[in-house]
């Protein structure tokens, strides 16, 4: 239902319906901002990411179709790409590791959607905490810093051909840790 609504709102945005854009904005502001912040580690830059994402939406520069899967996944991906892009332009390396620090903040989520997010976060962090340090690091470099294949290979001193396998392995471990928690995963 919710995803249907998102897609319907997106259609209205394409027809230049300002109210629809505002509704989508309200719905995703906090998640996208927090996700951007997780990547760029700077309030001003995170705002810049949000600005770009919604401009792309409004101007139709980024096209969503239902074949692309869930709207939420699509807009999260677009946000991640935008954030990575801005990060690269700033060429500032946020000094951050994927670790328990994520769990230290108190969660101020208030909207009901954020309850789900919070629960998901708890399960996820538990799953992350079981990963080996190297696996945390590789996920951080690949997913949250958006480093290139080549850069990752240099950072962890592995041949180019091995990097992809390591990333997949780390992600699969994470997914199976999640499955053990009876959490989000559909994988055994």
């Amino acid at each position: 239902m919710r995803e249907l609504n998102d897609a319907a709102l997106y259609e209205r945005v394409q027809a230049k319906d300002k109210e629809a854009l505002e509704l989508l904005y309200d719905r995703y502001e906090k998640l996208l901002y927090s996700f951007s912040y997780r990547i760029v580690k700077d309030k001003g830059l995170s705002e810049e990411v949000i600005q770009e994402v919604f401009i792309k939406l409004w101007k139709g520069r980024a096209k969503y179709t239902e074949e692309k899967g869930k709207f939420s996944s699509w807009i999260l991906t677009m946000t991640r790409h935008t954030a990575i892009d801005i990060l690269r332009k700033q060429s500032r390396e946020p000094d951050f590791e994927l670790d328990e620090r994520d769990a230290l903040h108190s969660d101020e989520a208030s909207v009901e959607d954020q309850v789900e997010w919070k629960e998901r976060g708890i399960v996820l962090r538990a799953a992350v905490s079981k990963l080996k340090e190297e696996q945390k690091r590789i996920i951080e470099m690949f997913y949250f810093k958006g480093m290139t294949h080549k850069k990752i290979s240099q950072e962890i001193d592995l041949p180019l051909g091995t990097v992809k396998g390591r990333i997949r392995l780390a992600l699969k471990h994470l997914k199976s840790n999640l499955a053990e928690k009876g959490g989000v995963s559909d994988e055994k």
Partner: protein
Amino acid sequence: MKNNCDQLLDYFNGTLSDEEKKLFEAHLESCSDCREELQELEDLTSDLPYLSTPEEPPSGMKERVLQNIFESESEGESESETVAHHDDSKITEMNRFRTKRSPKWIAPALAAALFLSLAGNAYTYISNEGATTETEEVSSLLKAVQLAPSEGTTSKGAAALVSDNGKTNLVVQADDLEGVQDDQVYQVWLLEGEKPYRAGSFVPGENGKGAVSYEINYEGDHDWTAVAITLEPNAESKTPKGKVVMSSGL
């Protein structure tokens, strides 16, 4: 040529150039391995965004973001139309600049240092009385923006890029400026990406108003991305030393 399958990770991260991206997408059509791996990556990472700790967006962000979007929209779709309206060349009110602003609003790629000192404030609107008459003979207005004050300041201003006989001038006007001491000046900067270029300086009068018209005479083509005003210790600064008083993307 590089094996396309090796570009999967960079494609997933969106770090390929436009051309590489197109080529890779063509490759995807014919490579079922890559399609499967891409799908797998998407599935495996679909939960990761929720690992982000909820952060409170800065106050006023929604208003700024939506205003920037709708503003850029209402100013027309065709960029060329906004340039060189001879009928409108006699611009006496800075307010009118707003409606002539370039529609191509892009999130300002300010230098990181400048950006950090930027305000989380909404745009300010300059009053009519702040208008200058310097622009009356302008033959075409290329771009005009309101300057947003940085946090902790109440100054406001406007900047316009105007073209006259093949020369481009940057006209800046500001109100409610704090007075200067010793050799201090307000220095205007044009930013191209992260690189600042000097673009005139001025000292405000007792009424806190100041203005400067600067002929941009830097060699080569420049794509100005932002304009900012800083308070500098003297008129000699080659790069910004003082804090940003107000700024705007271009």
